[in-house]
């Protein structure tokens, strides 16, 4: 196992490079702040009164939380999604500009290169999630230190899975320009069709649900893995779950493994 240490150094090196790139990219940092501001400060505050209780016994928002609290975990997931999938740009970038080749002729095994990159991307994405956590007071979400730790661990898992997913996507896109499409064809549809900005009444059965929303939308939300990913974070941050949390945790854990190996298959070709 004398080979282990050099590989570890390599993984650390690749990770470090991703972190340096991410933290020096002011545009990306700005995006990481502007998204939560738009979603939480503008959309959240804008819609909150429409979900407010006005008469005792009447329900606007079916959950025991206000709209800002409900939205807060979803905004974190959105920020993580954007950063993770944007990370795929850096993979395309590296491919376009030969940087990937430089690493691929090194003695570092391919899986280690990918692992370093993905860990870097996941760290950056988690960082962007943590930026949103700072706004907890604004959304009136109170957190214990343990909850913060749990949230960060889960955010990292989610970031890892999504970053690998981004690399898989990057493998399918052959040009830079192709990436802009990601945000419109992947991130936003997944996000909106995930019960992130509107709640599914947890007390209703499926038959009752389709009274509120059309059948196709309910079906879409139920098959969308992001629905369950957001749900787990809601469970941690505001103590509310629409589904058993093990579904989301299982999906995220499976995503980490499956997407990593899918990414490895296409990586560096």
């Amino acid at each position, binding site marked *: 196992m004398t080979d282990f240490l050099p590989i570890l150094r390599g993984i650390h090196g*690749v990770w470090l490079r991703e972190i340096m790139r991410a933290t020096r990219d002011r545009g990306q940092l700005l995006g990481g702040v502007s998204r939560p501001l738009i979603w939480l400060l503008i959309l959240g505050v804008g819609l909150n009164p429409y979900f407010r209780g006005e008469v005792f016994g009447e329900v606007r928002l079916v959950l025991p939380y206000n709209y800002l609290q409900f939205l807060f975990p979803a905004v974190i997931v959105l920020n993580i999604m954007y950063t993770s999938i944007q990370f795929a740009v850096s993979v395309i970038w590296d491919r376009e500009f030969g940087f990937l080749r430089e690493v691929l002729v*090194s003695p570092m095994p391919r899986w280690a290169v990918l692992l370093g990159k993905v860990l870097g991307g996941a760290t950056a994405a988690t960082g962007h999630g943590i930026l949103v956590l700072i706004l907890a007071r604004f959304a009136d979400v109170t957190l214990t230190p343990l909850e913060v730790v749990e949230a960060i661990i889960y955010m990292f898992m989610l970031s890892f899975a999504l970053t690998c997913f981004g690399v898989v996507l990057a493998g399918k896109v052959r040009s830079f320009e192709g990436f802009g499409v990601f945000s419109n064809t992947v991130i936003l549809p997944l996000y909106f069709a995930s019960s992130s900005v509107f709640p599914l009444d947890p007390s209703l059965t499926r038959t009752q649900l389709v009274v509120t929303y059309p059948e196709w939308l309910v079906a879409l939300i139920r098959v969308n893995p992001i629905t369950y990913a957001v749900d787990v974070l809601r469970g941690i941050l505001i103590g509310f779950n629409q589904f058993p949390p093990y579904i989301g945790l299982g999906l995220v854990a499976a995503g980490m493994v499956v997407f990593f190996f899918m990414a490895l298959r296409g990586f560096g070709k």
Partner: protein
Amino acid sequence: MTTQDTPAEPAVLVQGVSLRYGSQIALEDVSLEISRGSSFALLGPNGAGKTSLMSVLATLRTADAGRVVVAGHDVNRAPRKVRESIGMVFQDASLDDRLTAEENLDFHGRVYGMPGNARRSATDRVLELVELSEWREAPVRTFSGGMKRRLEIARALMHDPEILFLDEPTVGLDAQTRERIWTYLDNERHTRGLTLLTTTHYIEEVDRADWICIIDKGRVIAQGSPSDLKQKHGKPYLHVVAALPEIRSALLDTYPDARTTGPEQISIPADGEEFVPEFLSRFGSRLHEIRFEAPTLEAAFLNLTGRTLRDRADGEREAQRAAGRRAGRQ
């Protein structure tokens, strides 16, 4: 660095290597040997298979047939050992523009598994070598094309490789920078026994090599030392200026291959070792000007491939592309 192999063993041994992309032949039955500490140039027009061969040597591609041994290690059986013993300078810029010179080198050292103090001393050494020590903390995006290239060479030398692969290392650079780069490389070759494998378009660079291998359409068509190749495949010329018409006609009568190439100038193929002394004894005193043109590789290349060494338009396009790529990485 691996040193257990015998010194007599060549740095690179290629035997009967073939490679195809689908139905397209990239390399066919290529065999060559590069001795340790030599400077080996791979010469060929675009698409001849130079980059494919490099990829096979660098373990980026697996040949369909044949055997390749690099620094004493078989590329298929011990690719990691091969990778540890080679350094690579790519045709395209491959530095990270957002990082400083030092950070780029440090990253490289980490990827090659070098411990911290080894990285630091290697960084100092290679920056010194390419005269970029003062720029160590400058972001690479502020570098000129030549500085970037020098840094890339420094990076490739950082982990102390036995063999350095350089794919068109000086495309798009001015003559002065090219000269500097070759000075660094020759220096490393002489002090540390580094083996160089270069692909290039520039005739001056090819001339510096100890050994040249010309490939075209995936095959080796000639190899040898520059003077060998010139002798075998190029022709020397003697250009003489004579004011008197009778001397000019005497020249044309004596040498049937001679041709008038200027108002008072006649060019004569100077084949054979005894040609020059014999010519001088006959005509030496009666001429205004004599100019000897040694056999060129350009001519040899033309003879062998039927093409000029550097398709000018091609070369310029490539230079622009390379420059564009570098500039594009903001």
